[in-house]
């Protein structure tokens, strides 16, 4: 079946496989391919696990698409891929991976939602999210130029950079549960 569509099918397969995104996303960016022709695509992708991308342009374009995505694909991906997609660099961490991913997504979402960047607002969003999900008391520092020395609970510290912003997130257990 691939032969019938020639370069179109080949390109579509590479799009799907290289970016590891759902095909529907690619369709919106490439109107020319016929939607019906996409139906059998999942099968070839699964079989071609060893396929290597040959065109650098495809990789670059895939990278351009990634930052715009907010929902994660159905396929499970490891943290390394998430880090690459979100453009996050972990500099120090004492935190389970799932919590780190949560912090990355939260920070990325807040950063993208801000019309005008505000480090205080970003810190606010991340802290509130973590206070709500993992309990008080979390602290968040966001900026481009600062040093710090803090005390944190075991397993509750994360220090990462996103673009030129450095985010530090840590928790210090408190005696009483806060109402706020």
């Amino acid at each position, binding site marked *: 079946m691939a032969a019938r569509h020639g370069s179109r099918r080949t390109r579509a397969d590479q799009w799907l496989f290289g970016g590891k995104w759902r095909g529907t996303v690619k369709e919106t960016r490439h109107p020319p391919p016929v939607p019906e022709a996409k139906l059998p695509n999942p099968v070839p992708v699964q079989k071609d696990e060893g396929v290597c991308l040959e065109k650098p342009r495809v990789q670059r374009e895939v990278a351009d698409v990634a930052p715009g995505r907010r929902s994660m694909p159905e396929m499970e991906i490891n943290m390394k891929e998430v880090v690459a997609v979100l453009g996050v660099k972990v*500099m*120090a961490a*004492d935190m389970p991976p799932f919590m780190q991913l949560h912090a990355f997504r939260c920070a990325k979402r807040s950063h993208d939602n801000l019309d005008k*960047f*505000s*480090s*205080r*607002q*970003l*810190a*606010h969003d*991340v*802290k*509130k999210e973590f*206070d709500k999900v993992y309990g*008080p*008391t*979390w*602290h*968040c*520092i*966001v*900026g*481009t*130029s*600062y*040093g*710090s*020395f*803090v*005390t*944190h*609970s*075991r397993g509750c*510290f994360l*220090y990462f950079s996103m673009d*030129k912003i*450095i985010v*530090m997130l*840590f928790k*210090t*257990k*408190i*005696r*009483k549960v*806060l109402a*706020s």
Partner: protein
Amino acid sequence: MREQQGSGDVAGRRGGVIRSLLGVERRLAEGDAEGAVGVSSGKQPATEGGGGGGGEERKAVVRVVAADMPPALQRRAFRCARDELAAMPHFPRRLEPKRLALALKKEFDAAYGPAWHCIVGTSFGSYVTHARGGFLYFSVDKVYILLFRTAVEP
């Protein structure tokens, strides 16, 4: 984006030195923790930047941006910060935020019990929860310092 970076702050980017004090037996009587407080530094009037007099170079200007702390503790923080800043190299002038943060935190941990946190820099925002009477956000020259306390479980 609004960014301000002082000269020689590259070293400060590697901040975030951490230390766990879980298990510390000593503790002081503490009140309830306060609500969250957000601060943002880097906003300085243009007039201040251009109008700096040479005669006052030796005297560090301390300005309190926000505080919820007894005056005695505030004065101690000011003195500690001034002393540490004075001890840093002046030619070329270089800020060592991690060192200053460490000094302040250590002093307050030793004097008033755990757990204190200190952030030092020229461009950062924050959103933290602090204990009652344990929050101070001030500036020395153009360096902003955030010092706050979190009540810890025994």
